[in-house]
C-alpha cells in the first residue's frame, strides 16, 4: 500500500486550494452566513467539488467516482474552514434514492429544490413497534383513485416539525414483512398529519412522532415501484465513505482532547502528564490509526478493482466503542466542569467545555442510531462469518433481523 498521492492528485489539491482561497470566505456584502454558504455551494458544485454524485442538470457537480479526490476535497475544505455539503436526510438519503429509482418527474421536482435546501426532509421509518425489527412496520397506504390514503404512526423522525417532506416506508401490499413495503414521498403540511415533538435526554426536542390520519400522497409519489421499498431504502450514497468521515471527525476530537489535556492543570501540572490519561489518549489514538489505515486499505483495494474486505461492516461497531472511550476521556478531563455544566435548552450557544459535555451525552445515542450495536453484531456474524441465523418464535429468517 502506497500511502502517498501521485502527482495527478497533488495537482488536483493545488487547484482546489486556489479555488478555496478565491471563494471562501465570501464578503459580507453577499448576505448573511446562510446566503454566503448557499452562494459558495453553488460555485463549489459548478467546479465539481461538492454534490459530485448529482448531475449538472439538477445543479450538481457531476463527477466520476474518485475516492482519492473526495478525500482531498474533505481535507482541504477542513483546512480552509469552508462549509461542507450539508449532511441532511434530503441530500444523503432522498437524492441518491431518486437518482437511482426515481422517475424523471420526481427527479425534476424534488432534486434541485432539495439541494438548495428549500425542501427539507424528515425520514419516516421507525414505528413504536418497529424499531430494530423495521420490517414489522404497520403504517399502511391504500390506493384510492389517484391518491394513497395513509394511516399509522412513525416515531423518531428527526426535525419533522420543521420539514416540508417525509420519505417514508409504508405497507402497501398484502405480502408479509419487508415484501409488502413501499417507499413513499409524503407532504407533511396537510390536515391528516399531526406532529408531536419528543423531548430528549439532552433537553432538546428534535425527535418527533408523526401521526397519519387519512393523510394523502399522490399515486405517483411511490419510488422504485410498489412493494419494492425495502430494496429502495437500502440505496446508499455511492460516494459516501463514512469511514473517512468518521476518521476525520475522531481525529478532530482527539486533537481537541490533547489540547484540553495540555491546558488543564491538575495537581500543579498539565493533565497530559498523568500516566493514566496518557494511556487512555494513546488507546484512542491507536484505534484512530487502525480505522484510518483500514479505510485507506479498503479504498486502495476498491480503486484497484479488488473486492474490498469486511472492514466497512465492522467499522460501525469499532467506531461506537471508540466513541464511548472518548466519552469517558472527556469525563475524566472535565471532571469538575462535568459536575456543573448544564444542557440549557440544547446545543446552540454552548461554549467551551459545556459543548464537550453535551457531545458526551449525545454520543450515547450513536450506539443506537443507524442500527443498534446488537443488530450490527448479528449482521457481521451472519454476513461475514456465515454464522447460522437465530432460531425464532416466528420463522428463522425473520428472527435475526435479516430480511434478505
Amino acid at each position, binding site marked *: 500500500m502506497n500511502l502517498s498521492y501521485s502527482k495527478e492528485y497533488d495537482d488536483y489539491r493545488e487547484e482546489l486550494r486556489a479555488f478555496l482561497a478565491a471563494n471562501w470566505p465570501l464578503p459580507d456584502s453577499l448576505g448573511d452566513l446562510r446566503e454566503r454558504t448557499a452562494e459558495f455551494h453553488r460555485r463549489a458544485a459548478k467546479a465539481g467539488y461538492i454534490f459530485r454524485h448529482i448531475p449538472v442538470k439538477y445543479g450538481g457537480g457531476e463527477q466520476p467516482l474518485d475516492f482519492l479526490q473526495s478525500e482531498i476535497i474533505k481535507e482541504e475544505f477542513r483546512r480552509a474552514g469552508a462549509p461542507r455539503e450539508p449532511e441532511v436526510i434530503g441530500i444523503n438519503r432522498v437524492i441518491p434514492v431518486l437518482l437511482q429509482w426515481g422517475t424523471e418527474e420526481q427527479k425534476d421536482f424534488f432534486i434541485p429544490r432539495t439541494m438548495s435546501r428549500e425542501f427539507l426532509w424528515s425520514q419516516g421509518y*421507525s414505528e413504536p*413497534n*418497529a*424499531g*430494530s*425489527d423495521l420490517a*414489522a412496520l404497520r403504517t399502511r397506504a391504500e390506493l384510492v383513485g389517484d391518491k394513497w390514503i395513509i394511516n399509522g404512526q412513525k*416515531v*423518531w423522525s428527526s426535525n419533522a416539525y420543521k420539514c416540508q417532506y417525509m420519505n417514508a416506508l409504508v405497507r402497501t401490499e398484502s405480502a408479509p414483512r419487508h415484501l409488502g413495503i413501499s417507499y413513499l414521498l409524503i407532504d407533511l403540511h396537510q390536515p391528516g398529519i399531526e406532529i408531536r415533538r*419528543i*423531548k*430528549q*435526554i439532552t*433537553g432538546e426536542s428534535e*425527535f418527533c412522532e408523526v401521526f397519519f390520519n387519512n393523510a394523502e400522497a399522490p399515486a405517483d409519489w411511490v419510488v422504485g415501484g410498489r412493494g419494492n421499498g425495502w430494496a429502495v431504502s437500502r440505496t446508499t450514497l455511492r460516494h459516501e465513505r463514512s469511514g473517512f468521515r468518521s476518521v476525520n471527525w475522531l481525529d478532530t476530537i482527539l486533537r481537541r482532547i490533547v489540547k484540553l489535556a495540555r491546558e488543564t492543570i491538575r495537581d500543579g501540572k498539565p493533565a497530559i502528564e*498523568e500516566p*493514566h490519561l496518557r494511556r487512555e489518549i494513546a488507546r484512542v489514538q491507536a484505534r484512530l490509526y487502525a480505522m484510518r489505515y483500514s479505510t485507506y486499505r479498503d479504498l486502495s483495494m476498491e480503486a484497484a478493482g479488488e473486492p474490498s474486505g469486511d472492514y466497512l461492516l465492522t467499522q460501525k461497531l469499532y467506531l461506537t466503542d471508540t466513541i464511548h472511550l472518548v466519552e469517558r476521556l472527556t*469525563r*475524566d478531563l472535565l*471532571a*469538575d466542569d*462535568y*459536575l*456543573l*455544566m*448544564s*444542557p*440549557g435548552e440544547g446545543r446552540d450557544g454552548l461554549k467551551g467545555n459545556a459543548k464537550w*459535555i453535551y457531545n458526551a*451525552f449525545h454520543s*450515547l*445515542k450513536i*450506539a*443506537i442510531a443507524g442500527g*443498534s*450495536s*446488537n443488530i450490527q*453484531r448479528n449482521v457481521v456474524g451472519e454476513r461475514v462469518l456465515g454464522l447460522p441465523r*437465530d432460531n*425464532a*418464535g*416466528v*420463522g428463522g429468517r*425473520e*428472527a*435475526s*433481523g435479516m430480511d434478505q
Partner: protein
Amino acid sequence: MTIANIRLPTSGGDDELMYQEEIEALSDSMARVLTDECDSLALHAYMDGKSDLDDQVWKRASELGWMAAALPERFGGMNVGPYGLEALHTALGRRAAPGPFVATLSAAQWLSEIGPEELQAEYLPLIASGQLKVAIPVAVGSGPMLSHTGSTLSGQLDVLGSADAGLIIAPVGSGQTVEAWALLKPATACVTLSPQEIWDPTREICALHCASAPMIALLPDPDGNIGRRLQRHVALALAADSLGAASNISAQTIDYLKTRVQFGRPIASFQAIKHRAVDMIASIAMQRHLLAQGVESAAADSPDADMWAALAKAGATEAFAFVSGDCIQLHGGVGHTWEFDPHIYAKRARLNEALAADNRALRDFAATALAAITRQGHSTTELGI
C-alpha cells in the same frame, strides 16, 4: 422476588447484629414511603419544575427520624451508625430522591465522630430533627479552598447541598494544602450560596462565596485526619446511593426487556440481551460486597476504613455509570427520551462519579494505604476479613 430486593450477605459485624432489627425496620419504612412519594411520576413533575418534591421528602424524612437514625442516642439518634447510613442512602438512591441527604447525613456523622462537644451539642439535635440542612464541598480534600485572613474567611468553591442550607462546611488553607475545616452560616453579602445549573436534576450544587466571612468554628487539621474522616462518610454515602440506584434502574430495565417484543418475541429472549442484563447485575453484586466491607470497617473505625471507603466509592460509582448507560441502550429509542427514567439515573451516576474525589485519586490513595498497612506487618488476608 425482584433482583432489587435480594439481600446479599454482609460480613456481620457486632454492631450490625445489634441493630439488625432497627436497620431492617428503617429500610422497609423508607422503601415504602419513597415508593409512594418519590415514584417516577413525582420525580418527573419535580424535574419539570412543577413540584417541590425535595422539600416534601425532607419533611417526611424529618418526621420519621431518618436524619437522626445514625446518630448516637444522646443526640436523639438510634445509634445505627454506618450500617444505618448505608440503608438510608441505598433507599434514597433507589428512587433518585432529591434533597441534600448525602451532604447533611455525611456531615452529621462526621461531626458526631470528630467534633468538639459544644458544636455537637449545638448542631446535631438540629440536624437530627431535620431543621438544619448542611452543605459540604463537592471535592473533599482537593480543589479550591477558602483563605484565612485575621478572623474571617474569603474565597469561593462549589458545595453539594441546597441553597437553603443553614450550615456550611468548607476547607481552609493557603491554596496548596488544606490546613483546617471551617463551619459557616449563610449571611447576607458575606456568605452566599448561589444554585448552579447542573445536568443531574435530582441534586443541587451551589457556588459558595465568602467575603470576609465570620466563622462559627475552625477545626485545625494538620495531619489531614479530619478531612479524611469527612471523605470516608461521603464516599460510603455515594457508594450506597449508587448501588441502590443501579439496582432499581437495572430491575426496571430488565422488566422492560421482558415486555418489549420485536421479531416476534420478547427481546429478553435474545442471548446477547440476556448477557448484558446479567453483566449489569453481576457488577452491582460485586460492589455490594465491597461496600459492605467499607461499612463494617467504618463502623469499627478500623485503621483500613478510609481505604475501603475509597475503593467502595470508586467501584460503586463506576458500576453505576456503566449500568445506567447500559440501561439507556437496552431501552432502545425510548431510552434517549426525557420521559423515560434511564437518563435520570445516568445523570445521577455521572455526578456521583465526579463528587468527593476523582476515582483515580481514590485508588491511588487506597494503594498507598494498603502499602502502609502491609508495611506494618498485616497481610492482606487480615484486612477486614
